[in-house]
């Protein structure tokens, strides 16, 4: 049966589709498994009153982007250029985030 090229292709596609479906099942499984961990993290956030994930620890204004004042990137002098790599991954001003109150 597998002598036909199309049969060989279908076999490869079926294996890949099974792997893709397995990724959905795995995503569902991981969501259930990690649920307790996420809940525990949320509890820690509530207990310690945390505001930011630890994604960029290289500078204080990248460690807590929501708490840093909007000019911290330019604290060295007014024309200082941003030099931390994660500065390129964080928007210079978070448009819309502070528009109503500030």
């Amino acid at each position: 049966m597998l002598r036909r090229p199309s049969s060989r292709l279908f076999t490869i596609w079926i294996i890949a589709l099974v792997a893709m479906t397995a990724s959905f099942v795995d995503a569902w499984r991981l969501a259930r498994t990690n649920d307790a961990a996420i809940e525990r993290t949320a509890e820690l956030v509530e207990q310690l009153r945390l505001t930011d994930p630890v994604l960029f620890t290289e500078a204080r204004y990248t460690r807590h982007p929501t708490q840093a004042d909007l000019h911290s990137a330019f604290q060295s002098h007014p024309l200082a250029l941003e030099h931390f790599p994660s500065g390129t991954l964080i928007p210079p001003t978070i448009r819309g985030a502070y528009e109503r109150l500030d």
Partner: protein
Amino acid sequence: MNDWIERQRHLLDFTLTSLARRKTKNIGLLVVFALLVFVLASVSLYTQALRSEAVRVLEQSPEIVVQRLVAGRHDLIPPDYLEGIGRLRGVRSIETRLWGYYYDPVLKANYTLMVPRTRTIEQGEIVVGPALEHTRGLGTNTGISLRAYSGELHTFLVTDVLPHETELMSADLVLMNEGDFRRFFNFPDGHYTDIVLSVANPREVRNIGLKLMEMLPDARPILREEVLRTYNSIYAWREGLLLALLSASILAFGILAWEKSTGLSADERREIGILKAIGWETGDVIRMKFWEGFVIAFSAFLFGYVLAYVHVFYLRFFLFEPVLKGWAVLYPRFALTPQIDAMQLITLFIFTVVPYVAAVLVPIWRAATTDPDTVMRS
């Protein structure tokens, strides 16, 4: 129906044999295409998972954080601030936070030092985040000496390490006693880093923020909704930035695909001419070429997506980690929870498979509708 299926299978068999004749070129194209899908799918899966996890845990972050600004800089909260805020109607509870940064010259890393309100820590003891355990080698019952800003050395005993599953939020934390914190930073009594408010009616949060600004013009209230919006915006920006960097490779692939499909080789032209001369209909030639484009694009889509899933959720996105890490020494090791939605997959499919198949079909349609004699002679 069976006849139609059998006809398509014969066309597919013919297409696959034809592709196998130019094996190296087509396998190369398949690999490049699969890599492109892999990169796009990795960025999309990672960002979506990180955004949803961060937003979910940050829903428990404080409703309002009040900072004080002096000359545009974050400053300490003086004691009289608390009395003023206590008089505001609608505020259910007021809590103070004591936290700050400490640069450790040994590790060349920044830690976040904090005084927890819900946990008692004895004097001289600290509780550290998981990243300090695996980067600085601090475990339970180990000691650490930190040099305070006054130059004095302070020694602490680690009594506990925060749970590893909370690393995304707690990696660099050092929790300590209030007295230790004040001595370490020479922090004046009665002053705090900022204030956390909880509001009785969630609809009133914005009004309370506005009242605070009227009452204390030097205050900067940060609402939870702003925190959530900031993180949504950061991930959207980061995803956009990575995609912008990738746009050059997407464009290069587009040119490659266009070049391959529009510049029909002499062999391909002759093949079309011969097929038409031996009685193939224009529709059959187009169907055959459709299968050719679809086989490559669909296979690349499946392989690229499956590899991306493994890369993001089992290999911890290691190929792109240096970009996200920057110069940071402390970086959390966290396992993300996948968030795959149908729209994400459909978008990826539409942006990768459909343009390629279209790019293959257009020039073939032109060649297939012309006279076989002309096609063979050109």
